[in-house]
């Protein structure tokens, strides 16, 4: 039942709550310091481990970070590139120079891209191109290791699947500690899921049924993000709904079986 994290470590806080910070590093996005005191700026769970204190948000939108891999929807074409909805405060820009020449984009397309730059005045700049090699041989090796990593990120246009949004603040819960939750869901549905760090998810399936199950799980995770033992419950729910799925099939078969049995009698 109980999760590996000790409950005493996580405290539910609201803006203005004083935090018992002892760690050397604090997350300035969520923790605010005044007169030698620390206060939370958001509603969330205060955590402190390994010299780092932060508050895991429970309400609110996606805040971009350079290096994040996000799923976006192209909403407009502007002078220098595409305007992309990435579920953040403002739409992001995907400059044409950052689009690989092979991919042809149009409005409405769903893409996977990386946050290349996040400037205060510039807003979010995206990149869909795997990083280009610089001149000089020395870096070749490094580039290759990086390339294998970028390969896993699968930047580019999404050609099939369903887009489902989760509240960005609940995303860490969907992934779970060390990816335990998301990999369980992937395994359970036997389908691949692209997880954008902005809360847009793409379930790679054509099956409406799987999409429904997936959406329900997402809504449950959103609603119960602050509770413990959620991964176990989701895994249970997943196996139950999938078995009811297979039951429906088998019961359908058994019904025909019974019918045929009756006919033979």
């Amino acid at each position: 039942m109980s999760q590996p994290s000790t409950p005493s470590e996580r405290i539910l806080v609201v803006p203005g709550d004083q935090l018992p910070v002892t760690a050397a590093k604090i997350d300035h996005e969520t923790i605010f310091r005044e007169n030698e005191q620390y206060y939370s700026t958001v509603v969330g769970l205060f955590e402190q481990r390994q010299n780092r204190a932060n508050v895991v948000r429970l309400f609110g939108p996606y805040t971009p970070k350079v290096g994040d891999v996000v799923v976006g929807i192209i909403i407009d074409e502007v002078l220098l590139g595409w305007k992309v909805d990435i579920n953040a405060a403002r739409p992001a820009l995907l400059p044409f120079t950052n689009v690989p020449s092979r991919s042809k984009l149009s409005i409405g397309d769903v893409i996977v891209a990386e946050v290349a730059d996040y400037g205060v005045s510039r807003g979010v700049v995206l990149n869909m191109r795997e990083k280009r090699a610089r001149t000089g041989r020395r870096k070749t090796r490094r580039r290759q290791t990086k390339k294998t990593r970028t390969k896993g990120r699968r930047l580019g246009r999404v050609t099939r699947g369903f887009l489902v949004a989760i509240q960005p603040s609940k995303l860490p819960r969907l992934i779970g500690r060390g990816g335990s939750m998301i990999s369980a869901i992937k395994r359970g549905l036997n389908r691949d899921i692209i997880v954008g760090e902005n809360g847009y998810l793409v379930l790679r399936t054509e099956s409406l049924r799987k999409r429904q199950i997936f959406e329900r799980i997402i809504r449950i995770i959103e609603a119960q993000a602050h509770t413990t033992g959620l991964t176990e419950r989701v895994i249970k729910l997943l196996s139950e709904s999938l078995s009811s799925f297979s039951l429906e099939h088998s019961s359908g078969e058994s019904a025909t079986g019974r019918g045929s049995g009756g006919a033979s009698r």
Partner: protein
Amino acid sequence: MQQGGGAEGQAAEEWRRPDGRAADELRPLRLEVGVLENAEGSAYGEQGRGKILVAVYGPTEVHPRHMEHVDRLTMLCRYHMAPFSTEERRRPQPTRRDIELSKVIREALEAAVLTERFPRSMLKIFIEVLEAAGGTRCLGITLASLALANAGIPMRDLVVGCAAGKYKGRIVLDLSEEEDKEGEADMAVAIMPSLNRIVLLQMDGELTREEFFQALDLAIEGCRRIHKMQVEAIKRKLQEGLALTPPTEEKE
């Protein structure tokens, strides 16, 4: 009890206000967080007969562009009383009063919001009074800060509003519409309870210097009580999901 000690204090306890409250008693208050699906953050509240709905949109791009601040968030606040919120139909256009309240509420909230985190962005706060029964600006602020928390906007503190005033010679807390009209003074106070800072202070009527400080202390005390309810409302919203566990499963 504000009237001093001894026999007089006892008399104050027996004395009741038109709606049967004691001098330092709040009207029944109900706060709810996250009631609207379409807004980023929202809150609904009832205080006595009064009902207010608050919605927060954003942060988004600034429109119209000339309102943009390059170094901080542009906050837009609209306090508005619905045409059906008063005894007689009210013209729906914002009045001078609405415009003034929008401004002071915005300034009270700006003190709490970490505006420098969102340069070139805009946040819209809509405070819609559905039924007015006195003290709407205070309830509006209380709810707006809940809606902001619900939208995930980083804030130094929650903001709580509460009124105090003078009615029939006594300093009373949280004046109703009737008391406001007949009373000698009405004072709206909003504070950041953890940081212990006043972010809004308005007064209408006449108070002596002494009475003013009495009323201020009483209003701050009221704010602190409402702040506890604010925190409870947020926690209730977070707990809401628990009731959503899958009994729907059986049907399918």
